[in-house]
C-alpha cells in the first residue's frame, strides 16, 4: 500500500553511472550519514540517520528524545491540576497558548465546568494570535532552510508585535501560564483591543509582502514544488494532522470537525492544499496552507474582538480541583501544528493519575522516512522543515 516514491526524473545522474575516462565503472556503495542532533537545519535537537546512495536518500531514521523532560511523570507528582499548566506551556514552546488551552479544556470537561463566554472569546483571540506567531516562526525558518535569509527577520518583526500583546496581557512573551482551568489568570488590559486591531491592520499587507518575497519566489518554488510529496492515504494512515494534513488535500480541521469553544459562531474556512505549483501534498502546499491560515486567523481575531462580551474571567476557577475517581477523558484541539490531545485519568485525588500528551509534532515527524525516500539530501532539509516540528513537543 505504501510504495516509496519513484526517483524524480530530473535527477539524471544515478549512482552506478560514474565511469572513468578509460571506461571503468566506479564501485559505489551506500553510506550512513548522521545529520546530528546539533545541526542548523533540523529545527532543534533531532538526529537523522540517513542512508544515502550517492546523494539520493535510501532511508532516513529519525532519533528523538534529546529534549525529553518527563512531562508525563511530572504531572503525576503535581499536587494540583492547575500546577500542570506551566509545564504544559513548555512542551511546544513556540505555541504555548494552545497547549495550555487543550489541557484546561480537558480538565474542564472532566469536572463539567462551564466557563463564562468572555473567557471563551479571549481564549480564541489568544490562540489565534499564537497560531499566527507560530506560523511566522515556521515560515521564517523555512526561508532560512532554503537559503532565503531576509524573510526570517521580517517575520520576527511581526512576531514581536504579537509578543507585545501577550506581554501586555499576562507579563510573559513566550511561556504564559495564562489559560487556567476554569478561566484566565488576568483579564484583558485597557488598550488591548485597540492595539490588537492596529496589529490586524498592520499585518494584513505584510502577508502579501511575505508571499511576494518568499512564497512565489521562483527559486523557492523550484526547491519546494514536487518535493516531499505526502499522499492523502499515507497521511491518514500515519494520523498526520494540522497544516501538514491539509496540505495533502484532506479537508479536516478540528476547529470545525470536532468543535470546541466558539469557533462554530465565527466565519472562517480551513485552507487546503491544491497542488497549485506542483503535486498536491508537496512542501509548497504545506507552506501556502500556513500562509493562508494566518490570514484566516486574522479574520477570526477580528470577529472575536468585535463580539467580545463583558464578564468576569476568574468567576469559574474552582478552588479545589478533585475529579471523580476513575474519571478520564481525551480531548483533542487544533494547535498550531495539528491535533494536540491530552488524555487525563483521575483517581479521585487532587493530583492527576496519568496524563498523556499527544503532541502533533511527534506524530507528524513519524512520516518523515516515508516522504524523504528517493529525494536528495537538500530535499530532506526542506521536507523536514515543512513538517514544522518543535522538539519540545516531539519529546515532551
Amino acid at each position, binding site marked *: 500500500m505504501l510504495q516509496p516514491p519513484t526517483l524524480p526524473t530530473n535527477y539524471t545522474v544515478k549512482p552506478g553511472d560514474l565511469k572513468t575516462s578509460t571506461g571503468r565503472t566506479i564501485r559505489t556503495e551506500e553510506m550512513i550519514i548522521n545529520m546530528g542532533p546539533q545541526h542548523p537545519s533540523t529545527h532543534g535537537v533531532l538526529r537523522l540517520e540517513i542512508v544515502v546512495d550517492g546523494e539520493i536518500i535510501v532511508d532516513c531514521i529519525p532519533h528523538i*528524545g534529546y529534549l525529553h523532560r*518527563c512531562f508525563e511523570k511530572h504531572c503525576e507528582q503535581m499536587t494540583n491540576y492547575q500546577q500542570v499548566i506551566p509545564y504544559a506551556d513548555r512542551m511546544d514552546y513556540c505555541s504555548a497558548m494552545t497547549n495550555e488551552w487543550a489541557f484546561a479544556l480537558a480538565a474542564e470537561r472532566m469536572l463539567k465546568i462551564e466557563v463564562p463566554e468572555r473567557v471563551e472569546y479571549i481564549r480564541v483571540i489568544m490562540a489565534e494570535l499564537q497560531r499566527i506567531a507560530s506560523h511566522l516562526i515556521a515560515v521564517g525558518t523555512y526561508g532560512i532552510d532554503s537559503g532565503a535569509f531576509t524573510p526570517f527577520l521580517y517575520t520576527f518583526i511581526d512576531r514581536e508585535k504579537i509578543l507585545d500583546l501577550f506581554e501586555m496581557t499576562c507579563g510573559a512573551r513566550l511561556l504564559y501560564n495564562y489559560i487556567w482551568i476554569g478561566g484566565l489568570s488576568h483579564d484583558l488590559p485597557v488598550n488591548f483591543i485597540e492595539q490588537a486591531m492596529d496589529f490586524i491592520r498592520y499585518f494584513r499587507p505584510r502577508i502579501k509582502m511575505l508571499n511576494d518575497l518568499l512564497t512565489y519566489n521562483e527559486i523557492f518554488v523550484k526547491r519546494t514544488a514536487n518535493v516531499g510529496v505526502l499522499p492523502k492515504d499515507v497521511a491518514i494512515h500515519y494520523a498526520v494532522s494540522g497544516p501538514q494534513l491539509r496540505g495533502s488535500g484532506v479537508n479536516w480541521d478540528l476547529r470545525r*470537525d*470536532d468543535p470546541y469553544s466558539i469557533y462554530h459562531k465565527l466565519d472562517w474556512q480551513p485552507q487546503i492544499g491544491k497542488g497549485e505549483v506542483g503535486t498536491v501534498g508537496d512542501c509548497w502546499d504545506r507552506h501556502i496552507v500556513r500562509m493562508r491560515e494566518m490570514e484566516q486567523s486574522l479574520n477570526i481575531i477580528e470577529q472575536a474582538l468585535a463580539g467580545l462580551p463583558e464578564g468576569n474571567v476568574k468567576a469559574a476557577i474552582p478552588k479545589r480541583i478533585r475529579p471523580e475517581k476513575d*474519571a478520564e477523558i*481525551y480531548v483533542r484541539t487544533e494547535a498550531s501544528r495539528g491535533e494536540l490531545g491530552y488524555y487525563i485519568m483521575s483517581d479521585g485525588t487532587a493530583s492527576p493519575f496519568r496524563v498523556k500528551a*499527544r503532541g502533533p509534532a511527534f506524530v507528524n515527524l*513519524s512520516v518523515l522516512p516515508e516522504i524523504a525516500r528517493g529525494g536528495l539530501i537538500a530535499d530532506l532539509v526542506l521536507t523536514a522543515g515543512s513538517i514544522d516540528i518543535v522538539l519540545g513537543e516531539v*519529546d*515532551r
Partner: protein
Amino acid sequence: MTAQEIYDVLKTTFGDAIVELKLDILQPWIRIEPDKTRDICLFLRDESVMQFDYLSCLSGVDYNNGTFGIVYHLASMVHKHKIVLKTFCTKDHSHVHSVSDVWGTANWHEREVFDLFGIIIDGHPDLRRILLPDDWEGNPLRKDYKVQEFYHGMKVPY
C-alpha cells in the same frame, strides 16, 4: 454510531474477545482481549459502517495494582464518530500485539509505550527505545520506578 451500537457489532463478530462496555461515563470505552487486538482493529478500520481510519492516541497506563493497560483512541474521518478501546495485561505477562500495520502511527506510539512502561509489543517491526537513551535502565512511567543512581558516570537524582 454510538458506543453501544459499535459494541453490539463487535460482539456479534468477535464474541468473547470483547469483554465489556463501560457506558455511563463521559467517553464510553470497550475492553478487548490483548491477543485479539490486531484483528479487532483491522475490522474497525476496514468495515464500512465503522471506518475508524484515524488513530488519535495510543497510551499506556499503570494502574498501580499489578495491571497495565493500553488505551486506543480511535476516530473516523468518514463517519465522524469516536471510540475508546482498552486492553489490560498483567505485570508478569505484559505482552500486547502490535497494531502498527493497521495504523502506521501506532509504530512510534507503541515504541513509546515499550520505552516508558516496558510492555512488550509483539510483532512490532522496530521495537526499541524512542525517548530515552538506548542504554537506560528501567521504565520510568511505572508507578514503582526507582531512578538509577548513575548513568555513564553522571549522578542521576538531583
